[in-house]
């Protein structure tokens, strides 16, 4: 009997440890270990650490808003926002308009956001109505709507009557595949109030900008509408019984996600220096989805901390993987391969987890 007791005690202790690990998330632990091992090997290969961190911060500033666009969608119960390309295209249209109007600097950036928001509201509204008709398979439908819209806009980019020679093809009609933002709003946020500490460059403006967006989002979640939105995601029947119009809330969540997608691509573009049109937005949704999942979100629950932690880990790996891989093996596309493995792997993991462990 005593032996049994001891045995059961150790098993309960073991179980509680396992439970803790599980609640922290096995994939998150693996990703953190992976990032640490990359950092250590970077140190051995004498790759300058401050430069790596600087890059990570820049990428954090560029990508977090895109990741943030997943949040309202998850909270309102329409799962991962695979319709992100819709928001991105709205953002790109805003950017193109701002260039067409010959705007420069921060004005150009905020004007682009200003132009894209009404578009995003319109597109998000339509997309939200669609999602309400396909409850239960939002992610699949969203993915294909994203693909379809990207392809449709490939015609759009050719036919839209933009005249500015910076963007137009030299011969024929339409806009180029990539539009340089040099002299427009390239790096406007990254350079704003930027400073250097221990050799690490901090893109203050970009970080402040995403900080403001996160703050606004967290304040919104504390309003009556924000609470109603979360109720819809957690338990649509509860929401209905509390007098909330669940379908309307889902549309609202989708609109907010779409707007954030539009703002997200513009923050991304200002750091990257180019607007990438045509097929480029196709797979952006997967990167953002993977980032928030690494941060600890599930298909049904997410927090702002998940957005930030996840983007940091995910982008951190990408930043380190490239120089490490280049030194170890001269396989050019290793960083790209690791990005695809990590992002698709983590999405697969999240989908496999659905329904289990509840």
């Amino acid at each position, binding site marked *: 009997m005593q032996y049994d007791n001891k045995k059961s005690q150790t098993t309960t202790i073991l179980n509680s440890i396992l439970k803790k690990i599980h609640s922290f998330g096995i994939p998150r632990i693996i990703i953190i270990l992976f990032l640490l091992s990359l950092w250590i090997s970077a140190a051995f290969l004498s790759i300058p650490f401050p430069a790596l961190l600087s890059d990570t911060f820049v990428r954090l500033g560029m990508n977090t808003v895109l990741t943030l666009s997943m949040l309202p969608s998850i909270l309102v119960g329409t799962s991962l926002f695979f319709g992100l390309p819709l928001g991105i295209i709205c953002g790109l249209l805003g950017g193109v308009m701002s260039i067409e109007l010959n705007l420069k600097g921060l004005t150009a950036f905020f004007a682009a956001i200003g132009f894209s928001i009404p578009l995003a509201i319109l597109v998000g509204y339509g997309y939200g109505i669609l999602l309400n008709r396909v409850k239960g398979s939002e992610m699949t439908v969203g993915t294909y709507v994203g693909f379809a819209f990207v392809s449709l806009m490939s015609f759009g980019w050719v036919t839209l009557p933009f005249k500015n020679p910076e963007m137009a093809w030299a011969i024929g009609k339409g806009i180029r595949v990539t539009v340089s933002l040099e002299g427009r709003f390239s790096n406007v946020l990254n350079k704003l109030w930027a400073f250097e500490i221990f050799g690490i460059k901090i893109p203050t403006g970009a970080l402040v900008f995403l900080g403001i967006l996160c703050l606004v989002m967290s304040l919104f979640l504390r309003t*009556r509408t924000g609470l109603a939105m979360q109720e819809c995601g957690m*338990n649509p029947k509860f929401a209905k019984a509390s007098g909330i119009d669940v379908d309307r809330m889902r549309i609202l969540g989708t609109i907010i996600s779409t707007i954030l997608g539009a703002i997200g691509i513009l923050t991304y573009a200002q750091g990257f220096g180019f607007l990438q049109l045509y097929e480029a937005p196709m797979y952006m949704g997967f990167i953002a989805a993977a980032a928030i999942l690494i941060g600890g979100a599930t298909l049904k629950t997410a927090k702002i901390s998940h957005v930030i932690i996840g983007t940091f880990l995910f982008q951190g790996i990408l930043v380190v993987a490239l120089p490490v891989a280049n030194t170890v093996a001269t396989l050019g596309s290793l960083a790209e391969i690791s990005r695809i493995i990590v992002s698709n792997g983590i999405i697969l993991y999240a989908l496999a987890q659905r329904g289990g462990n509840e």
Partner: protein
Amino acid sequence: MDRNRSSVLEMKNISKEFYGNKVLKGINLLVREGEIHGIVGENGAGKSTLMNILFGMSVIHSTGGFEGSIEFLGKPVTISSPFDAMALGIGMVHQEFMLIPGYSVTENIKLNREITKDNFLSNIFGPGLRTLNWESMGQDAKRALSKLEMDIDEWAKIAGLPVGHMQFVEIARELDKQNIKLLVFDEPTAVLTESEADRLLSTLRKLAETGIAILFITHRLHEIMEVCERITVLRDGVQVATKSKSETTIEELARLMVGHTIESVGKRAVNLSERKTILRVRDLRVRMPGETVQKVDLDIKEGEIFGIGGLAGQGKIGIANGIMGLYDSSGSVEFDGDSIPLNNPREVLKRGLAFLSEDRRGVGLLLDMSVEMNIVAPAVEIHHKFLKDFGIFSFLDRTQIRAFAQEMIQRLDIRCLGPDQPVKRLSGGNQQKVCIAKALALEPKLLFVSEPTRGIDIGAKKRVLDTLVELNQKTGMTIVLTSSELAELRSICDRIAIISEGRVMGILAPDAEDAQFGLLMAGEYAVR
């Protein structure tokens, strides 16, 4: 009765526990050749558990088996799976049809027992590829159907058949099985029209004449009296009686079926006729799957506790859900003199009605959210309470929410680690109290409460009911309590309406006779 006929099934001293909860206590059941044996009982009396044991369902064996023994055709048998039961010659006609809509009648009847013949491929690759012998399958199907005197085209698709015919196809499938000795009918008439039900009953008699033993489970007492030789009454897992038809009456069966002793009805001297009607329901129809309400008229007086009872699936649950706008409904509902819009939960809540759902975890709670947020969420949405105003924006007021939650935790004695504990960690009884607190935050004038004690242990049950009585007495809140447990209704309600087949069968005082409740629940007749 002919005592010489040999017994087909004998279940001896059957007991069953689910996790320490005794659901069957020493049941003895004897069915003879050619006998139609009726089993009656309220929901939860143990009918299904008994049948699950007979069919060796896995739900029995995965929960520790059962006590007692089963003899079939005089020999002790072990039935550890439905296949064993089938091999012995026990068949079941289900309440819900187990038919494939896209297949023909013949295909359904012969499903998994197809007649096949060899062909070139099956000679090489084995019996899996043998050809179906449509001709003889059709003949078999026709023969089985003709035993039932049913003129159904054996090649018609199931999908297009009327519901009654589907029931007969089910029976035909069982009849087609060779060596069938015992047929169990689980509420076979529930979905049938009157004439179809009559036809089914005469079919039962004919089947019995051929020597097949029949177990007939139903809550329609007059059907039982019409065809059964002997009747076993179950109540709360106990075999209350087994009687011959000649020895009993419908009234007695009804009384035996309900037969609760009323616990101290703390009756208040309330003269309801002097009170004004607060809720007037006319011609209410609710399309709630499994709980359809056909046509309900109710007048609920201000300040009373009104009970709604009846068997499961008869529509009692649908009434509150329909009025609260959770399921598509039609009719007219007047509250406090104003007519309220149907299918609009928001408006109904705004007018001062609130609802504790029977589906506590599915509808009543946000399981992952804290106790306090669960309590205030509907009030925030409906009455804009617990908000702090900042010009155009207003944010949730954490201090106010916390204070209200603390007050409710004390007042209702909610056992939790604190207002920020997620509700999914609370016990059923405490979750129910969170639901009550949630309703109180809405400050309703009328509260619908559905199955408040389902899945709650006995001690907590009493506390939940006491809380409801206290609310009613101290604040004068009108309460409409829907429950499957008649004893519960009778212990706290002023009046009790019994619902059967989606209609109000009658309204009784809580101290009315057992037999009257039993008759109304069985849908026998309407009392004024």
